[in-house]
């Protein structure tokens, strides 16, 4: 009884928010006035969350090609014309939407898979096996993680740029840096690894790989060891244990690591924008940037909005499907390592 009196003297906002923080205390119901107040706060937050989403969705369903002059947050009509136009002709260049999609999928799925496959055995070794250089090698894997992708892009740009295929005079082909056209003859550039999807994929894998090792190790650490120990008693060696016990057990987490890589590289912008110069290699993320702000003087905003929705959807779907695993992985597996 006494506590109720003390409570009223406290800051009303704190009091309002701090009741029953466990959410499970005995079944007293919320007084109506407090329910209404909390509902008002909840709705206000809801509106702030929905504001940009409704704005962009409304814009994407608008048939108007002029820029918005007044604020509209609820679609007055549903028109798919912007989506249609974006799918037909996404940029000013003769690149089809399918090609852009293919490039994005190639990079995000390719890098996600490559990093996963190369990383998994190393992650297992770090998680389960004992060997002399374990600590030092683990630090070595960890070092590149400190470097933001931008920081590693300079040397990768320079190194990949030195690998070129050239067509020399007299139909000879030179592969730099191993062979060259000889003398002052420059030759016609046929292929520059830096300016290709393959090269960008390599550059992206350079930062994705240490992350995958680290992340997978965190996951593998959380798998109980009992099954492996039982297998060892039954005479299974390390290789058998790895392929027949650990891989099947870890399959869901391998999938999560792959999808984390997919989400990250689907929206990769730094390396692609820095390395690629030919419109045929552009990705969806690059196209979206081209439609934004100062670069988009002639692009109608309904098309920009439609493109934003299209780029966001695959990631949103994956994320909603794997929400628990992703958040769990980032907060426990990832940080505690």
């Amino acid at each position, binding site marked *: 009884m006494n506590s109720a009196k003390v409570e009223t003297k406290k800051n009303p906002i704190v009091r309002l928010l701090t*009741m029953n923080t466990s*959410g499970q205390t005995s079944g007293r119901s919320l007084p109506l006035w407090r329910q209404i107040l909390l509902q008002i706060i909840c709705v206000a937050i809801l509106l702030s969350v929905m504001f940009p989403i409704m704005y962009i969705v409304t814009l994407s369903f608008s048939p108007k090609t002029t820029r918005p002059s007044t*604020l509209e947050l609820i679609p007055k009509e549903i028109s798919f014309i912007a989506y249609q136009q974006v799918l037909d002709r996404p940029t000013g260049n003769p690149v089809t939407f399918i090609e852009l999609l293919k490039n994005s999928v190639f990079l995000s799925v390719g890098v996600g898979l490559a990093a996963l496959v190369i990383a998994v055995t190393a992650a297992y070794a770090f998680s389960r096996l004992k060997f002399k250089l374990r600590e030092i090698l683990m630090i070595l894997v960890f070092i590149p993680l400190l*470097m933001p992708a*931008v920081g590693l892009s300079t040397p990768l740009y320079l190194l990949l740029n030195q690998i070129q295929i050239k067509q020399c005079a007299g139909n000879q082909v030179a592969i730099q840096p191993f062979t060259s056209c000889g003398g002052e003859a420059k030759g016609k550039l046929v292929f520059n690894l830096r300016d290709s999807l393959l090269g960008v994929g390599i550059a992206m894998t350079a930062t994705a790989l240490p992350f995958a090792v680290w992340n997978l190790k965190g996951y593998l650490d959380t798998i109980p060891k009992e099954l492996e120990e039982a297998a060892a008693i039954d005479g299974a060696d390390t290789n058998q244990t790895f392929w027949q016990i650990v891989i099947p057990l870890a399959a869901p987490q391998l999938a999560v690591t792959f999808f984390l890589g997919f989400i990250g590289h689907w929206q990769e912008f730094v390396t692609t924008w820095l390395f690629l110069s030919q419109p045929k290699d552009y990705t969806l993320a690059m196209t979206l940037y081209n439609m934004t702000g100062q670069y988009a003087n002639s692009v109608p905003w309904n098309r920009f909005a439609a493109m934003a929705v299209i780029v966001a959807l695959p990631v949103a779907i994956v994320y909603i499907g794997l929400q628990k695993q992703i*958040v769990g992985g980032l907060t426990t597996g990832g940080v505690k390592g």
Partner: protein
Amino acid sequence: MEIAKSSKKKTQWKRASLPYFYLLPAFLVMGVITFYPLIYQLIISFTNFESKDLLLGLKSPDLQFIGFKNYVDIFTAALPVENFNFFRVLEFNFWWALSNVMLHVPAGVLIATLLNTEGLWLKRIYRAIYILPVVVPPLVVATVWTNIFDERYGAMNQLLTSIGTYFGNTAPVYIRWFEDVKPPIPGFLPGAPLTLAYYAMMVANFWLGWPFMSVVATGALQSIPRDLYEAASIDGATGTQQFWGITVPLLRPAMIPAAVYGFTLSFNLFNFVFFMTGGGPARSTELLVTFAYNLVRNLRWYGVAAAFAVIIFVVALIVFLITNRITRATQNYQEA
């Protein structure tokens, strides 16, 4: 006897070397595409590498080793770049990350607490919708907010205009979010003026940031045993006392790693700055990563860019050592 011994030795050697075979694929690939470039970067950071050296690399005849000149130029603002001062960028970068986390974490915890209130109607719907900002790719978020803050057609100015009409102000609001150089609160951060663009980015990043913290806090809140609250109630603790005495300390082990994660994420938040302001106006919102990008892509001073990346690495290492210490300290707290 002799044979048996050698075969035993062989299997022993096999067993000892097995872990290295497991490491081989990753280290082979990383050796070529991660470690070698990192070393290469360190080397060219001591050179005057420019566009003309692109083809021949280190074999280029024009390439000179110039010692620490690139580093000195960066630190002493001797680069021929307008408005560039390394220490101001560094200060802004730290403040940017810190101010974001200082807003996102408390907001996330408060909203999670709010949604955990017993008997609140429509909880599930609120939870489902509040998660949406986490789900949208940050790249798309950055582009959308860029257009929202557009000075002529953007939603923010339109929203402010329509709010203004309620108060009898019919003139359209025209705020130049990304162009205005004058800081709205002068002297707020000594040495690095915070322009309107900073506040615009804060709004956008707040929208993106708190829901993640709220998800983490919700998980931690639900694992707090309810007996604690019951016992506290019996002992006469008020709601406020329970919040500070039970909820906050028990949330800390979950929130500190999340805050560290958020700090690192904001510290290198390339997309927002690059899309919304491009580092402007007058480089007031430049981060280390966006300036590094400028050096490579626009200025093409590869030697300077390499030196800058090495500096970023050292800064990141220091940040990591500090944050790691903080996380460790809270883990001990949790165990105690």
